[in-house]
């Protein structure tokens, strides 16, 4: 059984349907990316898994439990973490307070949880008492991931982690995600930077007009003539 299984999902916002019959799965500790042109519904897939869209049909199972229709708060309890694309830190709160909020659903936060995040992103330890709003774009992205990792989720949802980063920081960001998956956390990632994402991931989905188009290992998709021509710019 897979960690996450999305089966024939229909979803959207209010009356507007974006996803049609989408199938997708993520295995334990697997690194899966969703790519596709703008408006294909990539982010909508991720938001649907996290309970942020209007559910219209199909099923979303996480560790064998149906989670469609649950609130984000309940889905966090199930062990899923989500990092939004932008505006993903609480600017007036300190770095440490941001991390503390990540573990809000726990009654008390063990110091070890902070230490684990600080070990992964040492810059956050240095800046622990600084307001998150004063961090650089790359540091904010680390803080946002750190916050989502505070509860040590089994599945981490990343919405375009490279968005808004300076080009020389993008590689570093992908390296960090590699280390997260190496440590045993499964990742479902939506990325604009399709080539790099497919190079790094285990499996990739190509989504077009809210429907599945291709699914294969990242390398196979990169090698596919058709995929290259239509979606990766040759």
């Amino acid at each position, binding site marked *: 059984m897979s960690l996450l299984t999305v089966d024939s999902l229909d979803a959207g916002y209010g009356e507007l349907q974006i996803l049609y019959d989408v199938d997708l799965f993520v295995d334990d500790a697997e690194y899966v990316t969703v790519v596709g042109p703008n408006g294909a519904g990539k982010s909508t897939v991720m938001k649907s898994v996290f309970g942020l869209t209007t559910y219209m049909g199909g099923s979303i199972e996480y560790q064998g439990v149906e989670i469609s229709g649950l609130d984000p708060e309940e889905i966090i309890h199930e062990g899923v973490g989500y990092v*939004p694309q932008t505006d993903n830190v*609480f600017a*007036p709160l300190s770095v440490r*307070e941001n991390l503390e909020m990540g573990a809000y659903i726990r009654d008390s936060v063990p110091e070890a949880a902070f230490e684990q995040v600080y070990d992964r992103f040492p810059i956050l330890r240095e800046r622990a008492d600084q307001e998150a709003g004063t961090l650089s774009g790359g540091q904010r992205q680390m803080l946002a991931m750190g916050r989502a990792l505070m509860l040590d989720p089994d599945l981490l949802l990343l919405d375009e982690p490279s968005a808004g980063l300076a080009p020389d920081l993008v590689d570093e960001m992908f390296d960090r995600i590699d280390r997260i998956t190496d440590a045993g956390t499964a990742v479902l990632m939506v990325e604009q930077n399709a080539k790099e994402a497919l190079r790094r991931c285990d499996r990739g989905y190509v989504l077009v007009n809210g429907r599945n188009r291709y699914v294969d290992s990242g390398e196979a998709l990169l090698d596919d003539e058709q995929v290259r021509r239509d979606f990766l710019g040759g």
Partner: protein
Amino acid sequence: MITYIPAIAQPPHVLSSVVDRVQRRTRLGKHGWAVLGVAFGVVLLLDLVRRLLSGDLTVALLVGYLWNGLTYGLVIGLAGVGLSLTYDLLEFANFAHGDYITVSAFVGWGAAYLIAGFGRFDPGSLFFLGVGGTLYPGDVGVSVTTAPVAILGGLVVAAAAGAVVAVTLDRVVYRSMRGMDAISLLIASIGVAFVLRYLTIYVFTQQAFGLTVSAWTYGVALPGGTVNVSAPTLLLVASSLAAMAGVHLLLTRTKLGKAMRAMAANRSLARVTGIPSERVILATWLIGGALAGLAGFMIALLQGTITYQIGWTLLLLVFAGVIMGGIGSVYGAIVGGVLIGLITRVSLVWIPASFTEAMGFLIMILILLTRPQGLFGGETA
């Protein structure tokens, strides 16, 4: 999802666009107004020195104005904290806040009378402050020094009443409107304000009630006279400072307070982080309502009288303080409130008492022309 929020639904933006327009029309930028404001301040300061030296104004009188302004300002600030907190989290200006102040002040003073006159008078007459002329303050004899237990009890009951009123009205009215645009919420709050006001009139009539007998007062001798520091004002200063310190500790030290700041800063991120928004909103109403209750009890104590308009009259100054401090900032609300209090009292040096509140608004406009976001604007909670 994109929610369309009409520009007019965001009071600070309306205000800043007005401010923009004034700046453009007058061809004076931010800095121009700042220079003008500072020049105005310097002229007033020089005039103040001249008056002090020439004896037109005694030191005692000036210190008296400052002390009165501080006590008045602390009440305004206290009421402003609640207004600012709910504005910050729910993104609407609660016009019923003034009537929360009124209702909880009446309940608090009813409780104070009940405690002070228990066994000596009919409980019903006591709780309704002798409405219709069945009881007079002189009979019961309530003051900070003659009946401290009654005053402290009343203070606690007023805070509790404010919290209950705020939470109840959220459950009944505002909760079903969660996520609606700010203008609808604002109009609903005006409706709530009227309901509370007319309920107050229904129970307590439009009568003005004298509340207290004179309390112990300490005269501080200064050149040109004495400044009277009364027990009620000391209680007021002590309890408002304690309440403000409490709010500061709550916001910076507790998980709930941090969640309130987090939610105020970014509601959708708070949601995906797993912060239970309804619980945080409930706590915010509780705290804001309790502070409104405290402020209501205090302003009645300070004035020695209470009418059904006590909170509404205060609300305009509370808004001025909150806007001046930077709407949405708790510390701004406190500083803005104290400034408004000081301005309205110290301006007595130059203008008659009936114009002093206008002076408060004038200075608020001057500050906004220089700093459209308010003194502490841009920083949340």
